[in-house]
C-alpha cells in the first residue's frame, strides 16, 4: 500500500508524501543511485508535458556537476541560528509584515498579506535596517517606514488597468510573469 518505495517517490515528487515518511525516503534516495535516476526522470516528465524543457538536454549533466564539486571543499555549515524563515530577519522589502503577525494587534476581518517579488530591483538593502529594529520591539510602535516600493504600485496599477480598455489580460499577465 504505502510500501512500494517507487510509488512513494512518485508521491514525494508531487509533495504528497506524509512528513513522517519523507525522512526515510530521502535517506533511501540519497543512498541509491537508481532512485536518484527515477527522481530525475519523474521531474523530466512533468517538464516535458508542460513544454518547459530547454532546447537541448544533456542526460549526463548531473554527473558532470557531481564530478565538478567532488573536489570542492564542502561548504561550511551555517551558524547555529534557526533557519526557520518566519523568524529570520526578512530582507525583502515587504515581507516584514509576517513577523509582525505574531504581535497582538487588533485587526479587521478582511484577509490580506503583501505580495513580495524577491528579485525586485527596487529593493534597497539600506532601507531594511529599520525593519530589523522593529523585529525586536514588542509593541507596534509608530516608526518612520520606508516609502512604498515601486513594485507595490506597479502591481496595484495592474489590478486597475485590467478594468478598462480592451486588453484586460495583459495587466494580469504582467502581474504574474517574471521579474522586471
Amino acid at each position, binding site marked *: 500500500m504505502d510500501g512500494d518505495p517507487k510509488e512513494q517517490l512518485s508521491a514525494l515528487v508531487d509533495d504528497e508524501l506524509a512528513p513522517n515518511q519523507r525522512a526515510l525516503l530521502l535517506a533511501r534516495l540519497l543512498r541509491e543511485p537508481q532512485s536518484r535516476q527515477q527522481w530525475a526522470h519523474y521531474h523530466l516528465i512533468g517538464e516535458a508535458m508542460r513544454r518547459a524543457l530547454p532546447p537541448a538536454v544533456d542526460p549526463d549533466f548531473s554527473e558532470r556537476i557531481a564530478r565538478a564539486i567532488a573536489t570542492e571543499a564542502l561548504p561550511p555549515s551555517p551558524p547555529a541560528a534557526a533557519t526557520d524563515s518566519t523568524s529570520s530577519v526578512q530582507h525583502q522589502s515587504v515581507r516584514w509584515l509576517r513577523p509582525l503577525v505574531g504581535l497582538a494587534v487588533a*485587526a479587521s476581518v478582511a484577509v490580506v498579506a503583501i*505580495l513580495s517579488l524577491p528579485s525586485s530591483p527596487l529593493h534597497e538593502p539600506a532601507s531594511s535596517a529599520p525593519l530589523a529594529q522593529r523585529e525586536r520591539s514588542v509593541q507596534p510602535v509608530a516608526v518612520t517606514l520606508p516609502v512604498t516600493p515601486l513594485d507595490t504600485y506597479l502591481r496595484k496599477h495592474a489590478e486597475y488597468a485590467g478594468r478598462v480598455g480592451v486588453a484586460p489580460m495583459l495587466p494580469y*499577465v504582467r502581474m*504574474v510573469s517574471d521579474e522586471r
Partner: protein
Amino acid sequence: MRWARGGFALLSLLIGMLPLLTVATEHSPPAPATTRGDQERRGDAVALLRQMVAAPRQLSYEGTFVYMRGDTTTTLRILHRSGPEGELERLHTLDGPRREVIREQGRVVALLPDDGDGVISSGAADLALPVALPEDLTTLQRLYRLQIGETTRIAGHQAQQVTVEPVDALRYGYRFWLAEESGLLLQTELYDGEEVLERVLFTALQLRDTIPMPQLRGASNDAIAQLPEPVHPIHTESQPARWQALTPPTGFALDFSGRHTLLTPDVTIDHLVFSDGLASVSLFIEPDATATNETLAPVTRYGALHACVRQLPGYRITAVGEVPAVTVQQFALAARPIESTTPMEP
C-alpha cells in the same frame, strides 16, 4: 452579415457555415457599383472590439499561452469559467518561479506558491465588475485608428486581426487577433512604433462547457490557507478625489479615485486611475515626510510600463502606466491637490 456574438457563435455554425466575417473585404471581390465605406469598416472594427471585451467574460475556456516582453518569455495557463453563479479565473505560470492569480467575485488572489506568499485584495479587479468598455467609443476612435487586417490561423483557430493604431505619441498601439468563432483573443501585441513591447500568443485554446472547480483552485487551496493572518487589511475605498491631474495628456479621463492603506494602516495613499479607453495610468500620492523639495526623477521602464516619481513638499507622487515615458511624466507633473477652499469638482 455581422460577427456572431459569443453566445450565437454555435447557432451561426449550425446555420451552415455562413461566412462569419464581413471584414475580409480586401479579399472578397468588390461589387461592381458599390464598395463598403470606411464608416462600415470602422463599424466592423468597433463590433470586433466589443466582442473581444465581452467574449472572455461570457465564455468558459482554457488555454496555454506565451507572454513575451523584452528578453523574457513566460509560459502561462489560463482557465476561465463563466456560469450562472458568476465568473472565476485562474492564471498560472508553467515555467520559472510559480506564480498564480485567481480572480473571482469580490476578490483577486495573487500567489507565489514556492515562497508561501500571496496577496488577497478586494475591489478593482475582481470579476464582480462588469466589462468596462464604454458604450460610446467615439473618444477611442479619435485617439486610435481602427483597422481590420488579415485572417490567419493561430493555435488551430481562424483568427481575424485588428490594429488599433494611436494617432499621437502619447500612447501605444495594439494589434489583436481574435478567434472568428468565439471572439477570444489568440494573440495580442502592444507596440511602440516599430518595436513590439509585449506579446501574448496562445499556443492552445479550447472552449469548454464549464471548468471543474478543483482545476480553478489548483495548487492555490493550500497556499491560500497558509497565508499569514494580516496585521491590517489592504483597505481600498472608492472616494471623491483629494488630488487631480490638471491638464492631463490628451484623451485621458478620470476613471477611478480611491484610497488605499497598503503597507501600514496609518498611511493612506490616494489613487487616481485615468484612461483613454484602452491604456490607463495610475497616480499614487503618498504622504512623505522626507520629501522637502520639488523633484522629478527620471522615468523608469518596465517592459511596456513606465513609471515617474515626483516629489512635492510632504508628498511623493508616482505615475505608472502602460504608456510611453512622456505620458507618465506629464501625469506626474499634472498632479496637484484639490484645494478644499476652491469650488472644484471632487
